[in-house]
């Protein structure tokens, strides 16, 4: 009797499969039934695995003598029926549409195969009394493998592509042929001169809140948010994004509809787009819904400026800070400090160093210079002011390519000494007040592209030469001093 019911059930399922038009408009009752699919589908999964395990346990080991083997037939009976119900429900759910065609087709095919095979396995098992054949065991094993594959495909349909492995360790991702996680993380803006507003601010919202239903795998309402073309093309209800007109863009309207409204997106009980994110999308559309607009060129309106701030887009690395420099060698650092120079990082997490000489009489000694050689990339700020350094000693500065701020005030340095700085690419601040440099220094200053301030009070430099230099370099602060002598 039970065997007969399973055979009839399987036959009915196969008939429905041919009769029901999956692309037709769904009826409410059909959808209602269809939506039990995600619930029911877990029964055949669990029952088929349990059936396999019971066979395994009954075959060898401690349960071999028990009557466990008798349990597999009833389990397979339940598995077959639940698989049939799940498959039929899935058929109706598919009418709602919006699923990636190829993923869905495979999910459906394998689901039906599982239902048929489960029914077959039950019929086979219920006819044998004691020892089971190898063929039967192979069918059960195959069922378990199929359940794994089909379940995963179903998960992909519901949660979107890559759901399972999104947070997998990079090692596992590599085995699966997926890029490392860092490549997909919603990365904060590294370089605003190349980062686009869309990629760094808008796309992460679409990815995390929308694409599980409007992405490559699932396309509810025929609308996808995973490529620029699809976003602009819109879905079944027409255009969702009208560049420059957020008030005409259905996407914005739906974000702001009451959460209980049927058309509100994302649907109730799904992760919601926050008001700040909605505001950001609104601004992006008003700004022309551009996919190439750079963050650096964007003009945040008042409503969005706070969001820009919260994205912490200030402190953009510039000049020397944009360089990728390794942390200072700790051995060399210890040597430098032992040699009497004070060194500290300019900020936490930064590889760059600031140096000064606590002992004015022991500055740029041979031992210090030897240690400096190994820290050449890291030294950017140096305070050698009011020390006994001379032209010979400062010649060592030529080996520090990243210097940005240099104090040499009130030292015996002259033009010959500062020539060590020739062509330094990053030097911004140069304090030479109270030194012996002359008008000839301006020729050297000409070779410093980043220079913003130079201090020449109490030097033989003449006002005329300074004026001439200022004329050619209006952005450089050239200070000859205000205190008359």
């Amino acid at each position: 009797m039970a065997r007969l019911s399973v055979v009839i059930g399987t036959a009915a399922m196969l008939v429905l499969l041919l009769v029901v038009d999956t692309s037709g408009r769904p009826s409410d009752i059909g959808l209602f039934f269809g939506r039990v699919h995600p619930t029911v589908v877990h029964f055949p999964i669990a029952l088929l695995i349990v059936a396999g395990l019971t066979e395994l346990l009954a075959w060898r080991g401690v349960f071999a003598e028990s009557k466990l083997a008798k349990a597999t037939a009833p389990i397979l009976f339940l598995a077959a029926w639940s698989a049939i119900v799940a498959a039929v429900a899935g058929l109706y759910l598919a009418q709602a549409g919006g699923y990636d065609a190829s993923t869905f087709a495979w999910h459906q095919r394998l689901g039906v195969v599982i239902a048929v095979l489960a029914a077959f396995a039950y019929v086979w098992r219920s006819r044998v009394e004691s020892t089971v054949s190898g063929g039967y065991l192979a069918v059960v094993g195959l069922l378990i493998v199929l359940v794994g594959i089909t379940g995963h495909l179903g998960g992909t349909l519901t949660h979107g592509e890559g759901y399972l492995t999104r947070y997998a360790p990079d090692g596992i991702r590599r085995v699966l042929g997926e890029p490392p996680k860092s490549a997909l993380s919603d990365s904060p803006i590294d370089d605003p001169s190349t980062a686009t507003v869309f990629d760094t601010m808008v796309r992460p919202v679409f990815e995390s809140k929308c694409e599980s239903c409007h992405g490559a795998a699932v396309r509810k309402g025929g609308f996808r948010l995973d490529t620029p073309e699809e976003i602009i093309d819109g879905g079944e209800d027409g255009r969702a994004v009208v560049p420059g007109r957020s008030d005409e863009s259905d996407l914005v309207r739906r974000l702001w509809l009451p959460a209980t409204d049927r058309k509100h997106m994302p649907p109730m009980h799904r992760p919601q787009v926050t008001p700040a994110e909605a505001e950001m999308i609104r601004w992006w559309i008003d700004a022309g819904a551009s996919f190439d607009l750079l963050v650096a060129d964007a003009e945040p309106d008042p409503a969005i400026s706070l969001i820009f701030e919260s994205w912490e887009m200030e402190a953009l690395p510039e000049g020397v800070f944009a360089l990728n420099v390794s942390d200072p060698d700790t051995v060399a650092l210890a040597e430098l400090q032992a040699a009497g120079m004070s060194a500290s990082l300019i900020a936490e997490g930064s590889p760059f160093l600031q140096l000064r000489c606590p002992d004015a009489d022991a500055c740029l000694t041979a031992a210090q210079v030897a240690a400096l050689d190994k820290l050449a990339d890291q030294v950017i700020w140096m305070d050698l002011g009011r020390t006994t350094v001379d032209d010979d000693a400062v010649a060592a500065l030529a080996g520090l390519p990243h210097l940005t701020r240099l104090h040499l005030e009130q030292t015996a340095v002259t033009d010959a000494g500062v020539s060590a700085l020739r062509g330094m690419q990053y030097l911004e601040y140069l304090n030479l007040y109270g030194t012996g440099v002359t008008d000839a220094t301006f020729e050297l200053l000409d070779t410093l592209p980043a220079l913003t301030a130079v201090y020449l009070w109490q030097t033989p430099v003449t006002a005329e030469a300074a004026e001439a230099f200022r004329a050619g370099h209006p952005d450089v602060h050239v200070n000859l001093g205000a205190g008359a002598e």
Partner: protein
Amino acid sequence: MTGLEKEAHLEALRFSTRRHFLKSCGAGFGAMALGALSSLEATARAGTSALAGASTTGPLPHFAPSAKRVIFLHMAGAPSQLELFDYKPELQRLHLQRCPESLLEGKRFAFIKGVPKMLGPQAAFSQHGESGAWVSDRMPFLAGEVDKITFLKAMHTDEFNHAPAQLLMHTGSPRFGRPSMGSWATYGLGSENESLPGFVVLLSGGVQPDAGASVYGSGFLPTVYQGVQCRSAGDPVLYLSNPGGMSSDVRKRSIEAINEVNRQQYEYVGDPEVLTRIAQYEMAYRMQASVPELMEIDSEPDYIHEMYGTEPGVTSFANNCLLARRLVERGVRFVQLFHWGWDSHGAGASEALNIGFKERCEETDRATAALLRDLDQRGLLDETLVVWGGEFGRTPMLENRTGDDNPYVGRDHHSDCFTMWIAGGGIKRGYTHGETDEIGYTRVGGSVHVHDLQATILHALGFDHERLTYSFQGRDFRLTDVSGHVVKEILA
């Protein structure tokens, strides 16, 4: 002692045998000696890093700073912005007309009662520099330096009385007990000079600020971070010099002995304040040599004295400005100046806008301008923040406490808007941020709250004001408490 206690005591003594003494106390002494040896090193490290911050293991800013030092010129009593920087011709037109009641609704003033009259600007204004900033003839020297400065014209505070407003300005809270800005800065950055305190306070004008020494106290931070007051006349630092008959060598040895005892005490009780005490004794000893040299402003050339208007040997704002420059030149992190006497209510000559206020301007203008120029020519302004301002502003209304025939004019306290200025490391040159209405009564745009200013100062020093915290009584405290935004518009 009750019978029971006595019996328990005797019983305990019975177990304290000679063997017990040899065993536990012998091991104890050994442990103590070992502990002392290892802790010496740790103490030395803690002591120096607290004060010096010289090594890479010391405190570090959160990001690269644009300023290494701060000079805060606090004009205690709150100078009138309407006579200095916030030019309001419309207020001149309304001079001595009755204030519309609508302006007074829901407002509370410290002294104004009833319906006051409006008071036009009591100084002549003109524009200066390439930036075209308005400065009155009360500050002719500063007018020449406006292109180095960013004016904050829409400052506001929560308090309208001096002591709480000064506390809010300097400690972030109108009540006692919080560390001051200089303490936070030295806590975060340490000092660049092992022989001078990281936070120095210089007072002029005759009295302490209304809120007392709390405005430069360290609150719940270790006391090593509190502001050290230096005096420009007499003993520069009180109780620093050796008493008669005490040679430097004897002093050195006695400090060493005291510190050794303190170290043992620290071993025993583990109170970090003992480390502070040790560090302060050592610092005081080094200061015996460094401070006299520092305070020796006689050694400055004549043109510097001419520029600042300084007079060695007296207590004056000008001397303090020159000292401030000498201090930052030596790597002191935070120099806090207070100049008293700006509370221009008009209730007497010393606090009249036409007399006392004018004198305050004359006392401070030349030296303030000189400080900016001198710092700049030494290349120090580029890495030093100079901040100028009072604790709040003053009303566009006349305060007339004593009656109509009062020969003195004055204004009441006003917390809704006032002008401050900021210059130097990382701040725009020749810029004005914020605006008030046509009579200077309310802010129109570019509001900057006291907490915003504090956040901005900490930002220039390389700190995220939300991350520079100290755990006390179960929660993390910070200078800006729960508010404050960096005023990005003024960053260069």
